[in-house]
């Protein structure tokens, strides 16, 4: 076969294919049944052209048609509600269980630092001012002081919604940064995780020292289950990326990072969802100071138990299936 008669024979078909590729959605839809076999034909032409070593411009044109056809053929993935339900009921809790060692380590760092600084500052109340400026300490006191203005004058729904927007804007961005920082050898994730753990410990201790522990803990217990766990989750997902860069387990570094990305994706996605839930709870439930604190403790505690039993039990395969 010479180049000339190859072009003469096939170029009509190529033009037709090109028209569909460059066309709008309507044209693509009208040729939906024709397209996949046509694409295969084009790939065949590409192989022919290559094995005969035809002109690079022909090969490039066919290469282009194959690439664009590939984009079109595999592009239209439909969105279904089932994917989301599957993610929540199966993929996410499974991903968490598969990473329980890493998550345990990250939780230990976070809660360990929180407890350490908490006890330190309860024992030595003056130490608080070594870690945070006095103005911030006063501001924190004000936030949890039952006699302060906002305790006596509960804000309206509009105010709650504003806080909701702020929590999304702030907390989810922090989780994203915590995660992304992990790829820098794990440094970013670790830094933010440690900083948050220590900061939380210091603040909690300071509030306890002031004697406002009841309003404080009844406030944080509600959304803390989702929020704090989500921060730990995103930090662990980030640490996973950094870790995979150094410990490749026999794969190339690129393959190792790619695999870690795949593992980390459900974790960070789930953590995002958890933070949105946490923002809802924090804005619309935790701030209801007029609710008796007994009820808030019970509801908050139930939240913790439900969340962790979800992690442990959800999405397990039935035993019959396993065999």
């Amino acid at each position: 076969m010479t180049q000339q008669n190859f072009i003469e024979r096939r170029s009509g078909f190529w033009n037709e294919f090109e028209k569909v590729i460059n066309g709008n959605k309507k044209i693509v839809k009208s040729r939906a049944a024709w397209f996949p076999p046509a694409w295969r034909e084009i790939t065949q032409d590409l192989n022919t052209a290559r094995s005969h070593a035809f002109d690079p411009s022909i090969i490039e044109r066919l290469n282009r048609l194959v690439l664009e056809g590939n984009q079109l053929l595999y592009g239209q993935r439909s969105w279904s509600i089932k994917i989301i339900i599957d993610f929540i009921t199966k993929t996410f809790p499974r991903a968490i269980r598969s990473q329980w060692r890493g998550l345990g380590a990250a939780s230990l760092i976070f809660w360990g630092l929180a407890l350490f600084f908490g006890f330190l500052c309860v024992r030595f109340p003056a130490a608080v001012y070594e870690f945070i400026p006095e103005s911030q300490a006063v501001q924190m006191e004000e936030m949890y002081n039952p006699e302060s203005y906002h305790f006596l004058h509960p804000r309206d729904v509009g105010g709650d919604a504003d806080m909701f927007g702020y929590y999304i804007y702030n907390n989810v961005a922090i989780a994203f940064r915590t995660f992304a920082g992990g790829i820098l050898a794990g440094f970013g994730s670790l830094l933010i995780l440690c900083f948050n753990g220590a900061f939380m410990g210091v603040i909690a201790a300071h509030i306890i020292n002031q004697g406002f522990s009841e309003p404080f803990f009844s406030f944080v217990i509600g959304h803390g289950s989702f929020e704090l766990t989500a921060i730990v989750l995103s930090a662990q997902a980030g640490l996973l990326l950094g870790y995979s860069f150094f410990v490749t387990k026999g794969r190339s570094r690129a393959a190792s990072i790619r695999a870690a990305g795949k593992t980390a994706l459900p974790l960070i996605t789930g953590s995002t969802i958890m933070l949105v839930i946490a923002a809802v709870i924090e804005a619309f439930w935790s701030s209801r100071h007029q609710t008796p604190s007994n009820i808030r403790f019970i509801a908050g505690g139930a939240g913790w138990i439900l969340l962790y039993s979800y992690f442990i039990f959800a999405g397990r395969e039935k035993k019959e299936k396993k065999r």
Partner: protein
Amino acid sequence: MDCGADSSLAVQTPEGIEFILYPAGLPIRMCAAVIDSCVQWIIIITLFVVSYLLDFESIFGTWILLIMIFLVDWFYHVTCELCWRGQSPGKKILGIRVVRGDGSPVNPGSSFLRNLLRFADTFLFLYIIVLLCISVSRGFRRLGDWAADTLVVYTSQAQAPVRRSAMPWLQAVELVNPPRRLSYEEKQAILMFARRYPLLGKERADEIAHDYTEILRGEGGIENAPLPQEQDDSGYLLGIARGLSGDGL
């Protein structure tokens, strides 16, 4: 995944078909990033102006504004890449697109991942990380591209006009019969050379062609070879190219 002598990458589809991707380098991606951040700023400023003019705050409260800013901040690229087959406005203008490592279109997961890591890539002073990472890695990938296994490649429209033009300058040279059967790579290399000939200038073209021409001439034996100084080096290769490109057939 193979890589050629240039920056192109050969990838295989699940069907076992191999085709070539042309990853986009640092300068064009920087331009795209600049355009995209301009678009982001414009969106945010428009949001502020509109919410101020319509007095959003008293109707809905500020939370809508905050969430919109958050979405523009973190999900602008994801949304664009998913809606326009891997192209944000900046990428569309410059003719590049995000694809997965195997050439298939970008999916929600990989798009989300690569754009989350945008923060890590751009976080140090002067974007040192992203500059280094793109410059030294094969396929010009930044950290986010490595983790999500994506590539930024030229869309074919962008490179088509340059590469698909005819080569009228071949008509001027004399047809040369190659001394032996050339391999695929040799033929492609000669044709690529012929295509770029006008960009190189005569002297540089001769310099490039010299070593290879000498080998070919030596292999041809005495009876086949044109007289040594009858044709200059680049002319010799162009002559072969003329035969290969089908003009002489």
